């Protein structure tokens, strides 16, 4: 060994990623090591860049809604509603009250599933595989709820400008309460397995520390910032939807290390469940579907309805609630009005109207066909929602045409990733794993 070489020449460069089991998604981390210590690191992102912003400019406003799902694919509902909210503010319209509650409930379900994934995956990387399985099981309960409402598990495209795709299904409240009971049980088990687990605590406590001031300087938001002791939450600071009517606490840590962020996330799940339960209790009922004689009509499958109609039994069909194919579910007239704003220039008509009368067909045509569509007046708006990782902002500029002139996404984990070299510096190689896990990096929103 040549001892005359300068000290820094002994540093080893270690490439983690772009394809590495502990790099959730694809990023490259070049770590400069002095033995086991991280001297410096360089984060290389952009491997998942899919030109979301360029694509959003290229099509009508509604076209970006499915893309918005794919920003943060672990909590797609929040992105969806965030984008819709920005367009609504630009149009100066407001969703119905029932819709606002639905959005709150679905956002919080999404937030819990996001935190479960983050904590579960992080725990698995530290050897607690059981916790991962338990949490994925709990997430399954929530995804079943999401599936029953949106028809999809991951890429849900549930939000609409001015509303949501569908009303909540029958028995949703009971199903949700049952699911939350299960999730609570799982969280209790995971607390028992992790919170005082010597191995887990040793690896989480005192690693990946960031001070309050540095976190603010890096524009870090969300659970990551709250772990450093700043009680900042968009839901409280600038309430949107109906968050101002629901009571919840903002958990904060004090050390700004991985362990505090873990505790913050665990507590936030509990707070989200509180929000869901309050919202379920407060949600105003949609219009009751009654037939012409005032009898409550149970929802009827569309094919059965056709069979009935073939036999001439059509009395009361006008007001009847049809159960359509899952891909069209919710677009029937009754629930459609309950969850969508009365704004013909932004909201698609219920499918019955599209196929059933000329006004509905025209409205559909004018919103869907090339060259037509939602047309906000010239203007700009920055709308922020509290994503699972922090403030998710959509800055939309309209030039009066049917396409957004500019859609800028403020991705919450982008700023946290920018701070990663500072978080890793001075730590051990083994600390990279829990620190990176607590960032909850989501490639979709990081690279867009």
């Amino acid at each position: 060994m040549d001892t005359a070489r300068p000290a820094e020449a002994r540093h080893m460069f270690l490439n983690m990623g772009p394809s590495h089991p502990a790099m959730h998604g694809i990023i490259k981390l070049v770590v400069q090591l002095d033995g086991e210590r991280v001297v410096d690191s360089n984060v290389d992102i952009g491997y998942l860049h899919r030109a979301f912003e360029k694509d959003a400019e290229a099509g009508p406003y509604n076209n970006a809604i499915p893309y918005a799902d794919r920003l943060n694919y672990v909590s797609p509902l929040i992105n969806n509603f965030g984008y819709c909210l920005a367009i609504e503010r630009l149009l100066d319209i407001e969703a119905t009250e029932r819709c606002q509650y639905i959005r709150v409930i679905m956002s919080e379900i999404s937030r819990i599933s996001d935190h479960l994934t983050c904590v579960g995956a992080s725990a698995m990387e530290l050897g607690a595989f059981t916790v991962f399985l338990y949490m994925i099981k709990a997430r399954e309960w929530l995804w079943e709820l999401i599936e029953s409402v949106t028809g999809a598990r991951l890429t849900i495209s549930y939000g609409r400008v001015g509303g949501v795709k569908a009303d909540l299904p029958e028995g949703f409240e009971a199903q949700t309460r049952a699911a939350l009971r299960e999730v609570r049980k799982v969280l209790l088990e995971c607390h028992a397995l992790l919170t005082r687990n010597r191995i887990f605590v040793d690896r989480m406590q005192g690693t990946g520390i960031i001070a309050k001031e540095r976190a603010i300087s890096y524009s870090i938001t969300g659970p990551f910032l709250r772990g450093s002791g700043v009680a900042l939450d968009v839901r409280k600071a600038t309430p949107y939807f109906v968050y101002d009517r629901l009571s919840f606490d903002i958990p904060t840590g004090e050390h700004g290390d991985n362990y505090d962020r873990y505790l913050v996330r665990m507590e936030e799940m509990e707070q989200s469940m509180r929000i869901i339960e309050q919202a379920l209790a407060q949600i105003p009922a949609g219009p009751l579907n009654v037939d012409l004689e005032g009898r409550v009509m149970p929802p009827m499958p569309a094919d059965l309805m056709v069979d009935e109609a073939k036999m001439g039994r059509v009395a009361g069909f006008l007001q009847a609630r049809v159960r359509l194919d899952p891909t069209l579910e919710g677009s029937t007239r009754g629930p459609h009005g309950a969850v969508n704003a009365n704004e013909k220039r932004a909201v698609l008509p219920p499918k019955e109207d599209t196929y059933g009368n000329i006004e509905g067909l025209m409205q559909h045509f004018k919103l869907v066909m090339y060259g037509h569509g939602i047309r906000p007046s010239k203007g700009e708006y920055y709308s922020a929602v509290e994503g699972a990782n922090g403030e998710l902002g959509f800055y939309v500029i309209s030039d009066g045409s049917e396409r957004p002139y500019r859609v800028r996404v403020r991705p919450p984990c982008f700023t946290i990733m920018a701070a990663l070299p500072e978080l890793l510096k001075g730590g051990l190689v083994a600390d990279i794993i829990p620190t990176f896990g607590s960032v909850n990096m989501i490639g979709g929103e990081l690279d867009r």
Partner: protein
Amino acid sequence: MNPDPTLTALLRSAVPQALLGAHQYQGQETVLVHAKELPAVARFLKEHPAAQFDVLMDLGGVDYLTFGKALKSAPSRSTPSPLPYYMNPKPVKDTWDRLVPDSAYRFEVVYHLYSSVHNHRLRVKVPLPSADPVVGSVTGLWAAADWFERETWDMYGIHFDGHPDLRRILMYEEFKGHPLRKDYPIYKRQPLMGPSN
């Protein structure tokens, strides 16, 4: 969200020479600042006790090259069918104007500032000309500006003077052009051929 119009007033009294204009739209406050004055204004906004913008929430670019010119589909002679009355854009309470001509200022850098102390927000916009768009970096004030400015350079080719390491961030080094510029075609392909050396 209750914006404080005193922020504009504060800037008007403290740095009148830096302001190009100011407006409020849908309850959000915007000030337009000369590119040369931006670092000073940013410092002022961060440090003044009545402003205290400690968070640079977002930083991004806009290219106004085709602003208002994409109205192919608006009711006109080429598409004679007018929109039904219920589909016309409802005029919102405020009117919005860019305040600077698009021809002279093609680009804009948009800073979204947030104060965690006062819980207020301000949008600062810096219009830049088409040729040689340069603005001073604010990396010294907010650490988050580092990556945000790199991204804006990458996407729009706006140069940030004083940035320590202005490289591409989302695109690869060999990429030609700046993809979010309006004159960059969306279907253009640039296959990555591997390392340049």
